[in-house]
């Protein structure tokens, strides 16, 4: 971590809105995309994004500054998403995305349609989608997912296999 980052983190920790804004500028897209991958809903992802950054100054009190800040922030984001999933189980909406929306990656360049992929991901049960997103998109290992989600490595692998099976069925039918 650079000295500059340390300064920004220290300032955000002590309540500087400017420093918090700087952290937001650097990491908001990562947090939002991760939350979207976990929750498959822009609205929920936007709520998580807000909560994470509103709560960040206080949460930074427990940040040991030993690793990459973004890794820690992503871990906090995943846990915030899991909390939200638990509290939302009462009124689960199917958050299908309306149309092909703008992304930073530009227009689709591969044969799997993005809207179809989004729909297929959104149709996955949240327990399967979380493992799929963490493993196949975010690059976590099964061991890390097990720690993060509080499940066994075997369970993580099983969920991933089921997610793949469902996606294959959905997208290849």
């Amino acid at each position: 971590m650079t000295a500059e980052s340390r300064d920004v983190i220290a300032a955000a920790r002590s309540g500087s809105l400017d420093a918090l804004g700087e952290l937001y500028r650097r990491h908001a897209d990562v947090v939002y995309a991760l939350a979207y991958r976990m929750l498959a809903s822009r609205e929920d992802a936007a709520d998580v994004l807000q909560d994470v950054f509103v709560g960040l100054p206080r949460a930074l009190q427990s940040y040991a500054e030993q690793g990459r800040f973004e890794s820690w922030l992503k871990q906090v984001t995943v846990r915030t998403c899991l909390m939200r999933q638990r509290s939302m189980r009462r009124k689960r909406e199917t958050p299908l995305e309306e149309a092909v929306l703008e992304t930073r990656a530009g227009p689709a360049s591969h044969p799997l349609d993005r809207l179809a992929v989004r729909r297929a991901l959104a149709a996955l049960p949240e327990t399967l989608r979380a493992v799929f997103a963490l493993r196949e998109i975010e690059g976590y290992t099964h061991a890390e997912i097990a720690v993060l989600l509080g499940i066994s490595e075997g369970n993580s692998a099983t969920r991933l296999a089921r997610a793949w099976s469902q996606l294959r069925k959905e997208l290849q039918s």
Partner: protein
Amino acid sequence: MRGEGMAGPVFEDRLREAATAATMLAAPEDAWERIAARVRDGEVVLLPVEDTRRRTTVFTTRGLRVAGMLLLVGGAAAAAVLPASPVRQWLAKVFNANRATDLRPPAVVVPDSTAPSPRPPLETTLVLEPANGEIVLALEAPEQDVSLVVRFVERGEPELRATGAAASAQFRSAAGRLSVASATGGVLVLTIPRTTTRVRVEVDGKAYLTKENGRIHVLAPAADTAGSEILLHIRR
């Protein structure tokens, strides 16, 4: 267009790419204004910076412990009121012995409120700088509960990510070498880009994995592979 007709691995690669691209969204434009307004209003949001599942388990365990203690105390109290019960005799003996011999005031332990409360980090990530194209990861006296995973990726920097108890291990770095001592559990994930030419992973000085001349040799006593990952089991 759908993925019909694609072979399994091709489909999986395509879907991985598509899923990444389809979910790579930029944060909403008005989000920062809302966040800033909430912060200015003094709103407090408590984020789950620790493992909430574990906290729940601790709570449950604590509840069971308290219930057990109450049961014991209740049972002992009930037994003590019986005139000839061994509990009553034992209490009388202890009470008399203490009165006769120990007249000193009880020691008062004042907790040191200035001492920082140890809070282990949840994750530690370290970037490794190759020396002469080589990186060495050396584990010293790790517990067998430590999971050691080596991942090979296309690009990026070599890095070590430690989660769980491993995040609190002792890390020492030198040119091209990272030593990890006193890892008592958790997961260590060593990520190696394919461009790194020489790699050595050792446990207590014994080679567990090497990469040289484009060839990977797994020398650990036990290992599992899954795709581009190798799980090395710690054995003594």
